């Protein structure tokens, strides 16, 4: 067994275990942290696939930003754990049926007959001067430029919509615009009173 295979089993093992913990563990904060671990382990697997850019971006975007905000929200909400644990046995048959169907579907599509080593042999290793970032950039800005730009437009629309939904027209907090704050001069605020010292009688 070479080091690469060992690392693959290490990362994918951690990913599977952590993903299992995300749905079985009871404390929501722990679940979110296990999700972070899952992302991290998947990034490791992607690194082994020579997709450094995607791996680093996965860590940067999902671990570094999205999950931080997730954790933020989960910590702020004081979740009552009892109702979350209710009805486990009631939903178990339906849940396991759906899970089984899902696993079956995934197995049928990405099973060995389509993605086995015969159908899809392992690609040769990239040469030493291969830059994953450069290749991805080239593809995104040439072959896939329209889908890429469309995705960007979609994101901008989403941003505008999110801001429009959360923007409160009336300010609830007291607010002074900084451009007015910096106009304050000493003579507006401060008055130096000159008075002679009192004499002790």
């Amino acid at each position, binding site marked *: 067994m070479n*080091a690469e295979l060992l690392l693959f089993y290490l990362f994918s093992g951690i990913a599977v275990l952590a993903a299992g913990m995300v749905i079985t563990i009871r404390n929501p*904060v*722990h679940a979110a*942290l296990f999700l*972070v671990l899952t992302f991290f382990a998947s990034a490791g697997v992607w690194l082994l696939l020579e997709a*450094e*850019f995607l791996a*680093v*971006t996965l*860590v*940067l975007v999902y*671990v*570094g*930003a999205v999950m*931080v*905000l997730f*954790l*933020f929200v989960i*910590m*702020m909400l004081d979740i009552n754990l009892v109702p979350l644990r209710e009805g486990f046995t009631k939903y178990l048959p339906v849940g396991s049926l759906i899970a089984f169907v899902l696993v079956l579907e995934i197995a049928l599509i990405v099973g060995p007959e389509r993605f086995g080593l015969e159908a899809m042999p392992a690609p040769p290793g990239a040469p030493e001067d291969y*830059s*994953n*970032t450069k290749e991805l950039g080239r593809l995104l800005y040439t072959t896939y430029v329209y889908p890429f730009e469309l995705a960007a437009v979609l994101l901008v629309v989403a941003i505008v919509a999110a801001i429009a939904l959360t923007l409160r027209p009336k300010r609830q907090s007291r*607010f002074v615009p*900084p451009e007015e704050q910096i106009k304050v001069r000493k003579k507006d605020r401060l008055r130096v009173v000159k008075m002679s010292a009192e004499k002790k009688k």
Partner: protein
Amino acid sequence: MLETFQNLLSFLPAELVQLLWIVVKILAIALPVMGAVAYLTLAERKVIGYIQVRIGPNRVGPRGLLQPIADGLKLMMKETIIPTKANRVLFLIAPVLTFAPAITAFAVVPFDEGLVLADIDASLLFILAITSMGVYGIIIAGWASNSKYALLGALRSAAQIVSYEIAMGFALVCVLMAGGSLNLTDIVNAQQGSILHWFWLPLLPMFLVYFIAGVAETNRAPFDVAEGESEIVAGFHVEYSAMTFSVFFLAEYSAMILIALLTSLMFLGGWLSPFQGIPVLEELFAWVPGLVWLILKTSVFLFLYLWFRATFPRYRYDQIMRLGWKVFIPLTIVWIVVLGFLILGEVGPWFD
């Protein structure tokens, strides 16, 4: 050096020797960084002392030079207190989670031409990704301590780090555009020429944005609302004591060193001599190794950190957010466009 090492351990399998050699290299980076952290704390107390017309620590060793060692020993001897209702596991993992990213990032930092542990292609991205993990330690520490002060500090810190990371990322985009590479060694080599060829000039706004965002990312004054001793005692690490506390401390200071190092690598020519291209001075200072220049440049930024702390009052929280979102992010986006035109127009002496 590698040969002598291999000969010395020739009884072991070759892969193991390779691994041990990497461990040796890691130690060769990590131990000096830890030493630098220890003496940065002393420098901080001394510099702020002199700024405030005091002497600073001067009792332990000659001129107080052994003070960091005494502090370290003291912290090691103390008792690690775990609050009763704290989440034990997360409480103890949190300092490690802050410290590990701060020190991991040094793996891809080049200290001189070829003097780098892992010369990976996308080292800039790697650093951005790894340093963005540091916030977990802070959030987890705040939550696991089961204390309102700690939670408030953690939330403030998380919001601040996430906001400033965007501006920092855009500043890095500018650097990679100017350098034409994501590799830090290539970025430094793209600044060859003279002091005017360094990226501080074409990227002047980004230089300022990056360093200020770096100060905010490391939760240092004037952006240290996460600690805010006058409002929330010590923020996220209020419940920590002894070694658990000092690991947070080490993480903060190594992150400071990292930011200072990166700023000098990306904007001030890294290990390049400042006298490059100047006829007499260049030959006169040719014997100085690049590492020395890099350390000098890094020290300038570390001094700035201390100077800021002694000079500026703490920012108000809403103004921190305003600076990050309404000033820095638009500025960086505009500068990306400007830089695009500079590169397209092959404006010299940087892009011709």
